[in-house]
């Protein structure tokens, strides 16, 4: 066995891309400045040099057409990874995503498929403001036919990227840019992480914290502080929203009898409501308190250094919520 290495989130996903592009000549990368430039966040560094211009495609700033082309390429046998530089720009791909990519398998009665990955970045903390911060994974999760992945750490991100590329459906892969420098242990062979399996990041018996993406890191921080007071929080990262590992979430709630669902996107009509409903429907008898939901404000993301951190949950707010729930 080769020793695990410590890699940043960005490095780990990049290694996953290298691995899959070496393994399968049908994998291609399509996006803006992903080629010789190596990506706006250095997230595609070196790929162009290794795989060249027929597999690493630098597109014009032309998201609807370029993403539509990625879908056509996927229908014709390629496995494109299409990059949308900032999650907010995914709106430009929405028609292709919803009306073509998501529906092709169904419309063709399973005779055609769209094996592609749409990867995009999101996240607050760099004051990028209303049009460069959001991740529309809840939207995507509402569209039948898509799969939705939101990783929280380097090993999961890399393993899920590999799985997403191998998956025969359109997979949306949301990366929080604030996690890019975050380091973590990654096994040398970058094990595949199955799409549709949650991960218990920390075991605990007093409350279940179900946290999406970067929120899982905040939840771990909060759990650490709570442990000092003898409160043991279980932290679960669903990792993929579609398909959702409902059983793993329910199992934990049946053990702890309390749950908080935490998301870094606007709370209304979002992921927290969906997960809370599942718990209410399938684990109501085990609950000692109503499921609590923490989400971002129902506003665009403000750019101000004062306002931006107020926009979404953080470790302090999660800690406070747990104390409220337990009191």
């Amino acid at each position, binding site marked *: 066995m080769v020793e695990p290495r410590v890699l940043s989130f960005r490095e780990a996903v990049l290694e996953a891309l290298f691995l899959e592009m070496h393994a399968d*000549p*049908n994998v*291609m990368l*399509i996006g803006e400045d992903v080629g010789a430039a190596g990506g706006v966040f250095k997230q595609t560094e070196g790929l162009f040099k290794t795989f060249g211009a*027929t*597999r690493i*495609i630098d*597109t*014009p700033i*032309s998201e*609807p*057409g*370029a*993403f*539509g*082309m*990625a*879908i*056509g*390429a*996927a*229908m*014709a*046998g*390629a496995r*494109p990874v299409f990059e949308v530089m900032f999650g907010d720009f995914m709106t430009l791909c929405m*028609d*292709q995503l919803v*009306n*073509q990519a998501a*529906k*092709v*398998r*169904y*419309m*063709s*009665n*399973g*005779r*055609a*498929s769209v094996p592609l990955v749409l990867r995009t970045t999101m996240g607050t903390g760099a004051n990028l403001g209303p049009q460069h911060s959001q991740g529309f994974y809840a939207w995507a999760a509402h569209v*039948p*036919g898509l*799969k939705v992945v939101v990783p929280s750490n380097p090993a999961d991100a890399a393993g899920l990227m590999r799985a997403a590329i191998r*998956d*025969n*459906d359109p997979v949306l892969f949301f990366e929080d840019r604030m996690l890019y420098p975050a380091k973590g242990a990654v096994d040398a062979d970058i094990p595949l992480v199955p799409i549709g399996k949650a991960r218990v990041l920390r075991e605990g018996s007093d409350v279940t914290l179900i946290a999406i993406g970067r929120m899982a890191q905040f939840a771990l921080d909060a759990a650490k502080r709570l442990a000092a007071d003898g409160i043991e929080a279980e932290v679960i990262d669903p990792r993929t929203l579609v*398909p959702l590992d409902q059983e793993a979430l329910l199992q934990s709630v049946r053990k702890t009898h309390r749950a908080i669902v935490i998301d870094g996107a606007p709370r209304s009509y979002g992921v927290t409501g969906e997960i809370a409903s599942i718990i209410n429907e399938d684990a109501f008898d085990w609950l000692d308190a109503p499921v609590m939901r923490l989400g971002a404000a129902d506003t665009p993301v403000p750019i101000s250094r004062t306002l931006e951190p107020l926009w979404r949950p953080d470790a302090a707010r999660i800690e406070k919520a747990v104390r409220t729930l337990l009191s």
Partner: protein
Amino acid sequence: MKQTTRMAAASGRPEKTSPDWLGMHRTMLLIRHFEEAVRSLATAGAVPGLVHLCAGQEATNVGVIAALAKGDMIASHHRGHGHCLAKGADVASLLGEILGKEAGLCGGRSGSMHFIDLDNGNLGTNGIVGGGIPLAAGAALAARARGGDEVFVCFFGDGALNQGLLHECMNMTAIWKLPVVFVCENNGFGEFTAIDDVTAGPSIVARGEVFGIPSKMIDGMDVRTVFTTTQRAVTRARAGKGPSFIVCNTWRFGGHHVGDKQDYKADAETKRWLARDPIPKSAKRLIAEGLTTAVKLKTLEAQITTQVRVAVERVRNAPEPAATRLAEHVHG
């Protein structure tokens, strides 16, 4: 349907020397009779949803597709039965799909407007105006990455001329010299709106030329003109020289969809276009050239009506999809 027009030689390419004009005629006839059958089924209430017929546009459908090799692909649009048939769709599977039957190629999920037939190189009809354009362009990108020499055609109506997707894909296929042929079936209307009312600029072909794409407007009612023009574009594409743009002027003999009263069309204009019906025109020429006789054409037409009638009988009362099918094939 036997696709004599594609004449699979050893290379799988159509022969350049003697185009199969008779085969093209046969396919046009098949489309005309197929559409007539769909019209009467729709009028009788047997077709779920909307259905857009292409009668009148057969020369465009057939002339373009006859210039392709078997491995070449097309992306079609909402008025796409003709493309599907010309590309080799089984008559009963297409008709069954239009009727929403289990026996339809897509299990009754796609109907007329979302018929996907990859086995025959058809990326699908499309319910989104302009939606098929990037699919064909992207399939071309994939082919280039794998070193293939296939050519990709996207069909679209004049209505799609004002979709940004078209211009984005023209730009990208031009910079990357992708093997794509853009075919606009200009029938003068998008739904009930005349093209001139919604399309700026003095020339449609200029919309291709601005990207450096060879662009041409042709008589879309003449199957031979369509074929030879497309053949040149296909040769160019296969040689790695990039996309072409062909505007085929044509006319839909029916309404936008079955049931459309068409009061936005002027009678005189309709009459003028009916006189240009591509099928009698092709028949006349075939007879004059001694490629067939009036009697043989009658027999051919009788064969085709029988073929269509048999398909109608086969699927008209075929079973609806089972309820258990509803949730199938959302994910793989």
